């Protein structure tokens, strides 16, 4: 009897929950990803997507008056991960111009997308167009068709195109770039008697400010002025070295050279910040970004994505963002960046579908409104040069922080994961296992170069605008 009661209760819960879901789902039609020619759905998209009548774009231009696929009906799949709503804006805008095109948007979980995508692309039934991340470059690029847009046109409109040219072809570029900046807690800042004039420009300033922000109860830290736990590798050892003119890779673009004086200097600065200056502790919080979000650290370096995380997970934190400090105010490059990529086109797809995919890419690249929306959503700085002083872009804290020196950030290329992983181990060995900096970096370098032997990676640091 009791069992039956529990079963009925659970079944009741399920029905009530599902009814609740149903109600929400009904309001979900606006995000239905299939754009069809049915009357009701057209009505839904009509409101959102205005049809441009004029050619738009800078050098890469899009003419909405040119029919696609001779105006005949065609359906393509568009695979992506992340936000359906974001990609839906491309679909709505494009299909409003070309109602003969039906785009099936397929959302994927980030992690396993990279297992499924190569399998799907290895045949004719894969998606005609798909979202790319450069960290999976090697697995995907062989399935991509080159863009049907002259490289020189892309270079006129977008930064960093040269790094994506392979044998004269471009398979994807960056629509936005993301890098590390310093996030600081404004309430803690004010409580420490600091003002905007105290925003540090150099690492010495940073340590001085961090000391003022650190609160201790005896020997115990209550509030860290600056935390870098769990991201020494990605935010410092793979970025701050550039400030001293030290690349991650040798001039052959293949050999990793993290065992060098500049990286050792960065490493030592971090150790001293904790051990000598006492601005934080390796044992105070497992992750700098978590500690910052939880109000335990006053400053942390994080990439643009953290801006979204703070807004969604830590809405009570009153924070600001400033550019990463330098050693002398005149760095070779401020930091490393990585790009959010434009879309790939499936070279195995039907020719007509490929033509539509090429057209969508051109529509996306020429469309400033979409460029701004995608960059704001991803917290990336637009690669499109004409948007560098866009008001909406500059109203974003993470982007405003890097806007002044955006051309002084460097992309090393789609660096294989072994670099970040091996340097993470190096950082853990130094901070927690009493290994010397020299030994940790040498071990990391040996591991990385051994792993790179099986990779077809080539660094593009030499393509940096101010490369020596």
């Amino acid at each position, binding site marked *: 009897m009791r069992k039956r009661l529990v079963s009925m209760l659970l079944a009741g819960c399920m029905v009530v929950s*599902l009814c609740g879901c149903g109600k*929400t789902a009904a309001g*979900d039609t606006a995000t239905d990803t299939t754009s069809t020619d049915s009357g009701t759905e057209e009505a839904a998209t009509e409101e959102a997507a205005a049809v441009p009548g004029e050619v738009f774009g800078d050098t890469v231009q899009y003419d909405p008056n040119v029919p696609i696929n001779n105006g005949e009906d065609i359906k393509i799949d568009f695979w992506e991960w992340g936000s359906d709503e974001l990609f839906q804006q491309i679909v709505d805008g494009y299909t409003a111009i070309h109602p003969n095109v039906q785009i099936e948007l*397929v959302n994927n*979980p*980030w992690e396993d997308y990279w297992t499924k995508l190569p399998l799907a692309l290895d045949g004719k039934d894969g998606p005609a167009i798909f979202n790319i991340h450069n960290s999976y470059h090697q697995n995907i690029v062989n399935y991509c068709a080159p863009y049907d847009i002259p490289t020189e046109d892309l270079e006129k409109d977008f930064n960093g195109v040269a790094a994506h040219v392979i044998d004269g072809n471009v398979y994807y570029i960056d629509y936005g770039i993301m890098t590390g900046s310093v996030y600081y807690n404004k309430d803690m800042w004010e409580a420490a008697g600091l003002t905007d004039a105290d925003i540090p420009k150099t690492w010495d300033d940073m340590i001085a400010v961090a000391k003022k922000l650190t609160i201790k109860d005896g020997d115990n830290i209550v509030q860290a002025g600056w935390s870098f736990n769990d991201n020494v590798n990605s935010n410092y050892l793979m970025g701050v070295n550039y400030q001293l003119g030290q690349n991650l890779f040798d001039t052959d673009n293949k050999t990793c050279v993290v065992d060098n004086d500049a990286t050792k200097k960065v490493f030592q600065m971090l150790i001293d910040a904790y051990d000598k200056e006492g601005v934080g502790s390796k044992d105070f919080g497992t992750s700098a970004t978590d500690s910052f979000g939880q109000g335990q650290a006053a400053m942390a370096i994080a990439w643009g994505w953290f801006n979204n995380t703070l807004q*969604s*997970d830590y809405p009570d934190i009153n924070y600001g963002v400033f550019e990463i400090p330098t050693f002398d105010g005149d760095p070779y490059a401020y930091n490393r960046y990585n790009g959010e990529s434009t879309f790939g086109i499936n070279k195995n797809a039907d020719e007509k579908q490929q033509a539509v995919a090429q057209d969508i890419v051109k529509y996306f690249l020429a469309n400033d409104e979409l460029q701004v929306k995608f960059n704001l959503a991803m917290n990336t700085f637009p690669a499109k040069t004409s948007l560098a002083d866009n008001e909406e872009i500059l109203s974003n804290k993470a982007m405003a922080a890097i806007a002044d020196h955006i051309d002084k950030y460097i992309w090393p290329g789609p660096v294989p994961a072994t670099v970040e992983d091996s340097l993470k181990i190096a950082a853990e060995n130094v901070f927690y296992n009493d290994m010397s900096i020299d030994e940790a970096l040498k071990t990391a370098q040996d591991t990385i170069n051994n792993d790179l032997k099986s990779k077809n990676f080539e660094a593009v640091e030499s393509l940096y605008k101010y490369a020596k």
Partner: protein
Amino acid sequence: MKKKIQSIVLNIILISIGIVTMIPFLWMVASSFKANKEITALYQTFLPKAFTLQNYVSMNSHFNFMRFFANSLFITITLTVIVVYSSTICGFVLGKYRFRGRELLFGLILSTMMIPWCVTIIPKYTMIKAFGWLNSYKALIIPGLFSGFGIFMMKQHMETIPDEILEAARIDGANEFYIFHKIVLPMSKNGIASIAIFQFLWTWEDYLWPYLAISDRNKQLLSVGLRMFSGQYATDFGAMFAATAISIIPVLLTYLIFQKQFIAGIAASAVKG
């Protein structure tokens, strides 16, 4: 007195293990009523400080929960029914018939259980793609028609049914079809319940194969939908916990309904003869 103390100690140990097992589950359910900022807060409380139903309301922002739930229910029930039947009939043949190559056949079936699934998933994908079954439920159902584990379990179970009963039925003129459906099946309730629960659970939570085989969002399963909460840079823990809390209800219901037979079935299959 000694027996009583032993019983108390045993119960304390079992209760402790039960609590340790249950706490993560209960924490997940409790957290489904918390905002993300509370879930990721430094100082955790078991019960929500600020109770919210928002996670349940916003589940659909990631995918059409109800659709995915219904799809999962359909595939899971279909596969469970098929596997229960195919395992029972195969178990009956292997357990009650003597024929040449029987042991070899059984060995081959057992060997399918020894091969890690990750080794077979790419060839399986290639085959299904060649058959043109991708994006169709055929890709999910047909490769799962037979279960090596199910056949093994049911063979063990069949061996507990006395041959004399079957002989008596044959003498009374019953054919093999009648014997299986009218005598063996009703006598296999416990074994069937065990297989049903295992199969239901496995199919319900199977993620990678449905994800690889299905791309159409109208056909996608709940296990795939649950992964949508984990993004490139962040995870919507609250919505994920809410969706997971609801998604486990069918599994709990199945277990509660078949609990008694499940335990009896597992016990019977563990003892041959």
